[in-house]
């Protein structure tokens, strides 16, 4: 596993970056959404390489499955972009934003990479007894209050989304 993990990672990372760049630059939102699915799948593959199998499955089910279907439904509901319409803010704005993004990424990178561990530790601690079992044991042993809070957050956002999107009086 360890000797093939770097080439595999490089392939998936290249696919992920390609999908991200294509997503940001496409005209049609549908194309953007499909390229985002590509990126999400490659990130899920990288999760598998990093011994986070449960998270990889959740990524595919929730992100590539649920969230992207939501995006696609909304894209179908709203008007498609008019061909002549400007997709970007003005030219200077694009340059400034690109500069800002690069500076931000470099600053974060400088900070992170300095403190990054040089190599992975022994992954057996993550694999013992199965990844899913470990995640759920930790979740219910140490994070039970955040877990319940998140479920309430999801309920509230569900009600909020229904209340906002409902056809009716007021809004």
């Amino acid at each position, binding site marked *: 596993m360890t000797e093939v993990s770097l080439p595999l990672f490089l392939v998936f990372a290249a696919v992920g970056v390609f999908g991200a760049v294509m997503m940001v630059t496409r005209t049609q*939102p549908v194309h953007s959404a499909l390229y985002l699915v590509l990126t999400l799948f490659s990130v899920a593959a990288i999760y598998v390489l990093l011994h986070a199998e449960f998270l990889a499955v959740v990524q595919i089910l929730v992100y590539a499955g649920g969230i992207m279907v*939501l*995006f696609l439904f909304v894209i179908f509901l709203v008007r498609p972009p008019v061909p002549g319409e400007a997709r970007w803010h003005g030219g200077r704005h694009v340059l400034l934003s690109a500069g800002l*993004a690069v500076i931000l990424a470099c600053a974060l990178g400088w900070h992170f990479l300095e403190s990054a561990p040089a190599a*992975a530790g022994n992954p057996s601690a*993550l694999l013992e007894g199965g*990844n899913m079992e470990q995640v759920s044991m930790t979740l219910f042993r140490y994070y039970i209050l955040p877990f319940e809070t998140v479920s309430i957050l999801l309920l509230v956002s569900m009600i909020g989304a229904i209340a906002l999107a409902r056809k009716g009086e007021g809004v």
Partner: protein
Amino acid sequence: MLTPTHVMIFSLVLFGVGVFGVLTRRNIIIVLMSLELILNAANLNFVAFSWAHPSIHGQVFALFVICVAAGEVAVGLAILITLFRNRNSVNIDEFHLMKG
């Protein structure tokens, strides 16, 4: 040999592309998708650190981030549908009602 540094560089690139998309695109749907990209970059870092210092807590935290992202998308898209119904547009430049 795969090291955490590799994963972090990848997540930085994803983050940069996401920030660029949020700042430059006019279509709100694509801005929201770029936000998802940024959240994914953060998640990658959580998982990379959880793998480097073998500890499962980073993965649990990434799970919480996914939950919050799902809630954010649901509310964001509902707001977008309401906006589209009222203004018949998804162009971010046309929403400046609260400009002073």
